């Protein structure tokens, strides 16, 4: 670099070029933001137009809407949560807390909402297990570095994509007609979806492993299963576990929603309670659901941090 002296012409040219570039970029950014804003207001208008009640008509009544939620007696929230008889009980469904008790033995009972929450969590756990069990072998078949056959790989990948994109609600509806409406149909639906979702993440992990252990095993004549078991699995298992835990968090949420459309569990009860305007019951359910999801999230985050360290929280491109 021997440009000790700068010609003023060259400098000006450079400055002009830079200014042109910047202004062009600014123009594109402004255009992008402008288009996004137009799209936002258009979709807002569309959503408002298509809705049963309109935003500005309903906005002044938001507080009325909240008023049913405030119970006359705050103790009813605890009573609803633990199925304790309420002095406000006048024979209506709003305060019939003890009716829901699930007796285990003698006078010992599980409160109704805890039982329902347990159902929802169990649906999430079992369906995640189904997802994990099928996603692991599929992910080995779908990984480019482990399976040389391109047709087999493509078939498995497309199959997993289909499972991932297929609306869970349809699978649940289909199986509700076969195994009767309830948690089992929800398990099948969420399980099938989890196979696709976990399988995709898993095979991407598989494709990024260190291949040297695999080459070593290949050199001593290990077959495909042995190579996968001893070279690949030890590398990927912590990541697999981490993603599975993340999936449990998501599945708890999905199984709550599934409950609201007939999949059993706490979602169903919550939907009923809100649609009938039972303040104390709704607050008890929301509280229980909130605490459960919060605990599941925290536990899963703690375990993931132990398994793969801070990597569990890194952005993935």
């Amino acid at each position, binding site marked *: 670099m021997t440009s000790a002296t700068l010609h003023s012409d060259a400098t000006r040219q450079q400055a002009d070029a830079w200014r042109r570039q910047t202004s062009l970029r600014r123009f594109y950014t402004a255009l992008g933001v402008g288009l996004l804003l137009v799209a936002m207001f258009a979709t807002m208008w569309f959503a408002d137009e298509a809705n049963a009640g309109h935003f500005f008509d309903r906005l002044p009544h938001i507080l009325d809407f909240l008023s049913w939620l405030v119970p006359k007696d705050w103790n009813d929230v605890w009573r609803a949560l633990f199925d304790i008889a309420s002095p406000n009980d006048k024979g209506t469904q709003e305060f019939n807390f003890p009716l829901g008790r699930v007796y285990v033995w003698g006078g010992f009972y599980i409160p109704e909402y805890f039982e329902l929450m347990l159902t929802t969590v169990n649906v999430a756990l079992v369906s995640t297990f189904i997802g994990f069990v099928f996603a692991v072998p599929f992910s080995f078949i779908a990984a480019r570095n482990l399976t040389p056959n391109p047709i087999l790989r493509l078939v498995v990948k497309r199959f997993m994509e289909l499972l991932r994109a297929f*609306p869970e609600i*349809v699978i649940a509806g289909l199986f509700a007609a076969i195994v009767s409406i309830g948690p089992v149909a929800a398990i099948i639906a969420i399980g099938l979806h989890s196979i696709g979702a976990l399988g995709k993440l898993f095979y991407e992990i598989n494709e990024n492993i260190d291949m040297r252990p695999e080459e070593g095993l290949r050199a001593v004549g290990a077959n495909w299963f042995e190579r996968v078991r001893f070279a690949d699995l030890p590398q990927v298992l912590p990541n697999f576990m981490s993603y599975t835990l993340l999936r449990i968090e998501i599945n708890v949420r999905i199984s709550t929603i599934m409950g609201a459309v007939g999949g059993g569990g706490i979602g169903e009860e919550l939907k009923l309670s809100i649609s009938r305007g039972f303040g104390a019951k709704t607050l008890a359910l929301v509280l229980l659901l909130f605490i459960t999801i*919060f605990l599941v999230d925290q536990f899963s985050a703690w375990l993931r941090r132990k398994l793969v360290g801070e990597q569990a929280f890194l*952005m993935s491109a």
Partner: protein
Amino acid sequence: MATTMTVDEVKAIEDRHPQIFQRPAYKRFWPLLLIAGTVLYLAYALWFFSLPQVLRESHWERLPLFLSQWISYDLQPEFRLDQPEITPKYPRFSALGENPNPDWVTKNPDSTFTVRIDGDAKSVTFDKTRAAITANGVTVPISLTSGKPVVAGPVPDWVTVHDDEIVAKMGFAGEVRVTVDRVKVRKRFLGWANFVFDTRSPFFGKPAGEVISLILSGPELQPGTSNLALAADNIWNNAQWQHGDVWTKLLQTIVMAFLGTLLGGIVAFPLAFFAARNITPSGVLSQVLKRFFDFMRSVDMLIWALFFTRAFGPGPLAGSAAIFFTEIGTLGKTYSEALENIDDKPREGVLSTGANGILVQRYGVLPEVVPVFISQTLYQWESNTRGATIIGAVGAGGIGLKLWEAMRTNSNWANVFYMVLLTLLVVFIFDNISNFLRRRLSRTLHDYNRLQAERG
């Protein structure tokens, strides 16, 4: 060259690698414990969901039937035998329209009727006194004169004889039900009936070439409207497939995901700066905001959807609001985590020039995190497009509700499949848009992740 190691050699290797051969007991047995725990849990789940009973009472024979209904339709003509003259009757809203005269139902010269369910190989011929069902190379004669249907001769296994009814199942092709006063036929066709024009449309039943020439140059079928407008209106308002309604609902689902994610991002963006530990002016504020994000995330999308459905009424507004509130939490959390992981040097550099707070964020922080923010938002958008389908079913509008209603009637699986295909298409397109945009950003992200990895 097979060599066997001596005991000493084995021991030497074990001594050299104690971390492999002499691991503490808990490390050696935790996989076993994990597996045992899983098995125990599964046994418990088996009992909890009373799975054996559910499976015993389930109707798996319905599965192929339902699946075949996704891609086929049936016609069910009924022939009354107790009237002076036998005439075929079709149910209302039959796929054949008002004047059905299919060529697979024929009146023979000897005044018997023949219905060909699958050519001549699977058919039924009958008059008022007798019927003959042919399938699988066998013809089963039935006498109808003795007050109830009687099969003359041996009964093959595809025919079931009830007290007053004889049912002949012909697999996918259909079935025949015979009683003394009527013959009911179900004939199944592959494909979707009347997908373009329904039976009320003037274009109904016309071959494609004729429809096109009508649209291009034919006389106006409905005076005052062009044929093109009429055809478009007929397709959009097809009563059987409800294209217009389905597409509108699909658009609602897309809008819900887009609007919810975008608004969530807009609100989460400034909040994340106050929540990030390294940028916030006050540690208390950071903690409060982080707990707020956790709260918005942990109050499930379902709860928000149910609340907003009650507040605004069912529709996409409720769905958008539910996604919006959840996304404030999710995006706020990921944004603030991204901010906490930035490289501090550019920020210090800008700070050292004496720039004020906002300028430091704009030139020292934003260039580093914007690609991450956009990538995360796109990812959430993509997953919300899928999630909006489910949320719709609880009343938040969109295709989810329509799907759920079509399934609840239990009869319209072809419609369900049509909507599923559209949903899959939308998810596929949006996945690809999002992937494409994120790949464009990935170079920047790659640098970011490399920095992260270097920092450990």
